[in-house]
């Protein structure tokens, strides 16, 4: 049986509704909120500040340090144990590497920029939501950047290539599923994150990346508008 219609009635190349906001956390140096469908991410950026432990200092470059955390009742079933686990550490690492091509910390040697990603509600695609929010929060914190990063998951459900899988599609049982989170750098269209669960043929992957580039340019606009909105001149 083929996958002819998506579970929530979206088009195959359509993302879930997106909501984005910058400057949501008052005490942070920069912050952002990014919601895609039922998946929501809050990101707080602190720094550049002094790095501890001190042996992590790099006299040539500042360091980017990411944390990823799913909140206890964020998923659908059981309580998620808070704090770092193997999965969270891996996602934090790939997030860091997805953001690193745009972040320019040469002006801040021996310092660190901390990025905290918190997920109050999840429905698949959390690392993509986290990257989108983190990119906005870094810009909001006034960190020099060469561009912005947008990310969305791409995949194949049974025989169809679909963009932005939700949990029901990720756990589709009537056929095989492939799930690939992809992050795209806005200016250069470079791919800064690509992970693959499941199998996809070479042609399908090429096709998938092209579709993601289109979706990411839409997300990029939403991110930029959210940042500008914060400083827009309101007419009283």
């Amino acid at each position, binding site marked *: 049986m083929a996958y002819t219609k998506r579970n929530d009635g979206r088009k195959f190349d359509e993302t879930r509704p997106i909501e984005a906001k910058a400057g949501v956390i008052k005490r942070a140096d920069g912050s952002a909120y990014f919601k895609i469908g039922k998946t929501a991410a809050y990101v707080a950026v602190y720094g550049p500040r002094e790095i501890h432990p001190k042996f992590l200092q790099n006299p040539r470059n500042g360091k980017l340090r990411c944390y990823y955390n799913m909140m206890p009742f964020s998923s659908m079933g059981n309580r998620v144990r808070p704090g770092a686990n193997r999965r969270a550490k891996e996602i934090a690492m790939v997030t860091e590497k997805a953001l690193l091509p745009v972040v320019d910390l040469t*002006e801040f040697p*021996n310092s660190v920029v901390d990025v905290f990603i918190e997920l109050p509600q999840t429905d698949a695609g959390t690392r993509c939501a986290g990257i989108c929010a983190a990119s906005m929060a870094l810009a909001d914190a006034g960190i020099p950047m060469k*561009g912005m990063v947008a990310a969305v998951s791409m995949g194949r459900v049974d025989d169809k290539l679909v963009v932005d899988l939700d949990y029901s599609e990720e756990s589709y049982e009537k056929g095989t599923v492939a799930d690939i989170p992809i992050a795209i750098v806005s*200016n250069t269209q470079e791919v800064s994150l690509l992970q693959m669960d499941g199998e996809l043929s070479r042609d399908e992957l090429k096709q998938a990346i092209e579709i993601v580039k289109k979706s990411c340019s839409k997300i990029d606009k939403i991110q930029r508008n959210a940042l500008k909105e914060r400083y827009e001149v309101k007419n009283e």
Partner: protein
Amino acid sequence: MGKLLVEDKTIVTPGEELAEGMDFLPAEGTFRDKDKIISSRLGLININGRVIKTIPVAGRYTPKKEDTIIAKVTNILMSGWILDIDSAYSAMLSVKETRDFIRRDADLTRYYNIGDYIVTDIVMVTSQKLIDASMKGLGTRKLIGGRIVKVNPHKVPRIIGKKGSMVSMIKNATGCNIIVGQNGLVWINGSPENEIIVVKIIRKIEQEAHISGLTDRIKTFLEKETNKKISIQKVE
């Protein structure tokens, strides 16, 4: 031949293209990528002839030589004091850079103790961001009494106003003593009621700094708060 892609004084996000062609020159907060000039920070665009720069609206204080700042003493060493200057790096105040003659075996806490706030000048910033402060300049002193408010360091020029017009207006209206540090720390000393009014005004300026007609709005706000008539002195 070159073409501007944005208008003067608009908000731009990192990675946004500002101009095409080699006629324009990239300044602070921008960089050149082939024949395009691209913004590297979130900020307001400033076009001055051929020179394009972004004035950041967010981000921590970057220490500059000859800035007068308000700093907090965080540690005492053999040869001086370590200062927290609310930036990514801490500053060093050497015993030699004070106005008094201090003997080698003197108790340094008698001059500046941990937790004290001081007004100080930055005399040197190295490429590795080692910062030297000095208490020899005019107006440098230890702050006794009053209260400290932290503001966005990029809003400091708005709080001071043209040739100090804004801050002197607030001083005259409330009778408070105000010192604004370039690093975004503001010291206010006066009667408690007036101090609260000043804090309110500073927060208002911080929020509305990028909207034109600031002085008039602050003037009416001050008149309402203090029930006094205020005349704005024209500065030439």
